[in-house]
């Protein structure tokens, strides 16, 4: 009972009532660093799909064709406004907040490659991945013809009792190896790294 009276007295103090009801706050306005949903610029989309590949939110972006013109479409209900698509687009097709200005000022970009990983405990070394890989077949026709590796320039080959990845950088991410692996032992992952300066221009 005493505590109730205490609370009523406390909240009926004119000082408290004044600060509570007549508080002076800064007017609500959009800060300069605010990122809205990505919006189209006038730049032309080349359908490289970098935006779709980097998007972390499922179903947030799709590159669609409208009258012979490809372009990204943002789905606001799914988009989390992280701005990665804006940053990843090499053409600057999308813009959001000051992301484009900052990347231009700092000279930053995303650099991506494909990472191949083989689970040795699942792999039978049947050689399907090495032989089916279109890049391997071009580099080493003998590998494509008989499964016999004769070149060290291939992306991967059966060496020393396991699938050895020799030239990951040559992978184009087509995933032929992944599709033709009977044991799901090989996985292709697209890796992305932020780079700055000369690396970004390259």
């Amino acid at each position, binding site marked *: 009972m005493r505590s109730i009276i205490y609370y009523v007295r406390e909240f009926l103090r004119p000082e408290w009532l004044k600060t509570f009801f007549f508080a002076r706050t800064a007017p609500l306005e959009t800060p300069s660093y605010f990122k809205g949903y990505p919006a189209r610029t006038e730049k032309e989309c080349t359908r490289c799909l970098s935006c779709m590949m980097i998007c972390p939110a499922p179903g947030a972006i799709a590159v669609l064709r409208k009258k012979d013109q490809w372009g990204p479409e943002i789905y606001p209900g799914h988009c989390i406004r992280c701005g990665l698509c804006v940053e990843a687009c090499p053409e600057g097709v999308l813009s959001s907040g000051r992301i484009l200005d900052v990347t231009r000022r700092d000279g930053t970009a995303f650099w991506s490659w494909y990472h191949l990983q083989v689970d040795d405990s699942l792999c039978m070394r049947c050689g399907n991945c090495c032989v089916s890989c279109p890049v391997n077949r071009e580099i080493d026709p003998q590998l494509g013809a*008989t*499964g016999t590796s004769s070149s060290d320039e291939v992306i991967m080959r059966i060496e020393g009792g396991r699938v050895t990845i020799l030239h990951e950088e040559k992978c184009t991410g087509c995933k032929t190896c992944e599709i033709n692996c009977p044991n799901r032992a090989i996985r292709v992952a697209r890796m992305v790294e932020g780079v700055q300066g000369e690396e970004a221009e390259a």
Partner: protein
Amino acid sequence: MIVKDAVCPFCGCLCDDIEVEVDGDRVVAVTNACELGTKKFMGEKRLKNPILRDGDAWKDITYDEAARYAAGMLLSAERPLLYGWSGTHGEAQCVGVHMAELVRGVIDNTSSVCHGPSILAIQEVGHPGCTLGVVKNRADLVIYWGSNPIDAHPRHLSRYTRYAEGFFLDNAFRDRKVIVVDVRKTETANIADEFVQIKPGGDYAVLSALRAIVRGKTETIPRTVAGVTREQLVRVANLCKGAKFGAVYFGLGLTMTRGKYKNIRNAIELVSELSRHTKFTISAMRGHYNVYGSNEVNTWMTGYPFGIDFSRGIAFYNPGETTAVDILARKECDAALIVGSDPAAHFPRKCLEHLAEIPVVQLDPYPNATTAFCNVQIPVAVTGIDAVGTAYRMDGVPIRTRQVLSSGYPSDREVLLKMYTLMQEGKGQ
């Protein structure tokens, strides 16, 4: 030291493009081989010397003592069984046949429990087969029936069928179709273009249905045949008829299920039926690297491929009577020589009960399940690793295996010759 173009002595693919890195008397790395081949090349824990059972323990003996024991055992036996032979080279198999003839024994190889039925069917209706090279260079449709090459012949697809470039195909990899027929979704089925799942034991019915469809009698087919829908059967039949060159490879899923050799006969007849529309071949997925060679050697020496009984003084062949499982199950044989196989891991219990009661000598580099049943085990060199010898690939192509290291172990042929000489002396020849 790196040995190039070594031959892998594991499965019937007999890959001859293996690179083996050897350090002294040890294999340190294997390139190009599959998991199975790599493990065979890198194998460790071999027996050091021949061992003789001495009560509950093993006693080390010399090769001469072991050969004398084996020769004595075979000479004193009434009905000796000489079994195995698939995991050794052709030259040793020759000696084996001579031995069997000398002691009037029964010589049988592992095909009596694997592709024996295939041979019976071939004896009935012939073998429209071809070498793997033909399939590689021409086939645009490959059917794996009751076999799972990814587990048993891992490089079969990448080296000979699905993925290899073909000389007469512009885009072999894109153009080739693979159909897998099995009772369960195997690893090979994961990469097949069409997977036909049949109920266990339904192979004969499905083959008959396909034959009927190819003959143009689709309306006689019920809605499902052994769990396969009529639509799928028609699709498969059309794929086969539409192919320029088709190849069927079948495994123990077809030979050792209900129907046995009748299944193979039906499959061969489906293939000849399809050959009226296009070119089709059929071949067996032979397991051991030289099981085909064992059939070849037996055939050219005795006239019969397996299960040969010399008790009459001449070669007599009657599968079901003169094959290892039957002879053991009837408790007929009173001594057994096992070479390059592991019956204890594969034979029915009844046979093993008898095997445990008779004297058994085994030639094998490694302790295995049969070791528990033998009186003497003689470690030998492994053909293709520390011994040379001829082996036959699954398509009947003989390939001379290479020696990649020297270990000091005698080869199968040397040990068997020693026994054979002793046996000849014992017989007074």
